[in-house]
């Protein structure tokens, strides 16, 4: 079990909870893709998330929870 715990160590000791995530990943949309998906700039790299539930354009900052953008951040 200890070996397994190490595998998940980084996720478990991270600063926030994935599920509701207080720092909840504010990311910038880099590229819109078909099927409501987008590549977003997290500051640490590019990730693919769903933007199907918000109306956002390239350059907008969105709040992402569990891979789903749920709000657009107003500057």
């Amino acid at each position, binding site marked *: 079990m200890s070996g397994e715990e190490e595998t*998940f160590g980084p*996720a478990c000791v991270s600063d*926030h909870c*994935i*599920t509701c995530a*207080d*720092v909840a990943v504010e990311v910038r949309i880099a590229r819109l893709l078909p099927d409501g998906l987008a590549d977003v700039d997290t500051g640490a790299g590019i990730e693919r998330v769903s933007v199907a539930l918000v109306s956002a354009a390239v350059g907008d900052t969105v*709040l992402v*929870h569990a891979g789903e953008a749920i709000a657009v951040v107003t500057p």
Partner: protein
Amino acid sequence: MRFVDEFRDADKARALAAKIAALCEPGRTYQFMEVCGGHTHTIYKHGLEDYLPEAITLVHGPGCPVCVIPMGRVDDAMHLAANPDVIMTSFGDMMRVPGSRGSFLDAKAEGTDIRMVYSPLDSLKIARQNPDKQVVFMAIGFETTAPSTAMTMLRARSAGLANFSVFCNHVTIIPAIKAILDSPDLRLDGFIGPGHVSTVIGCRPYEFIARDYRRPVVVAGFEPLDILQSIYLLMLQLSAGRCAVENQYSRVVPWDGNVVALRAIGQTMELRPYFEWRGLGVISHSALRVRDAFAAMDAERLFSVPGVRVADPKACQCGEVLKGVLKPWECKVFGTACTPETPIGTCMVSPEGACAAYYNYGRMNRNRVPEATVPAGRP
């Protein structure tokens, strides 16, 4: 300047704390509940309690999705995962939540196929890669993660994926707040409303708190100044004898929420007649289940789920902590038998659990850091 720096300015924090202290009526104490575990985490990470006058107590609410999952549901999920045809997928913070026979992580170590995902979209990918297996997503969380589960179900349907299903444990925040307001144990003066849940449900659902219970609500952001400003707004309302719902986090939270996300949830899920919450017991219409129209994606219907109720370990007082009746350090096993490394109760598992927040940031007792505290009544 990073985006967050302006929300962490220590001088502004001190100024706000002084304004809060100036509004405290001599001899009166104030108890505010921060509903969301994310707020609990910020408060202890940044030591905000030390800035507040002694007259103000922050009570930690039930808004940590991992913390409110009862042991019985973990056991049910383990039962599902034990099926050799199933690949169970779960958020990382769920992996260590103890059921009565260990956690997902323990089961994984024993060979059960349980995989950690960041998003249910990852579960879809696993389903595509493993067409001969049934991939079950352990769905947990409030209205922040329910949209993600809903969209994933809609995507699975339009992609014609037949081997993806959801073990739905989504809960809704409003019935939990109502249960707390109706609980005789607790006297609260106001609520720091959850920020990210409100991006989805908006601010209107809290109006009953102001109207029927005469308590102010301020929906708050997650940076230190957001929380201090929200407490200040609560104090302003109280000192003016007002009770209203206010939105401090308007840079993210629209007053009406995210209508598209609510529609997606409504399309795929419906309210359960009742659901058991850890610590709060059974609350009616407080959780979501998969709609009949999506029955083929409902793990509870595809597989037999025992549905047993399991009592929490006797030593664990998560229930009292979740209701705000006990402070984490008042629990008998806090920091001794129960630590983030070997949690007994759920509140010690997630970084947003009150116990984990206290433990990780060294809040082992009621003592505050005196130099940071502004005496009540001093401007």
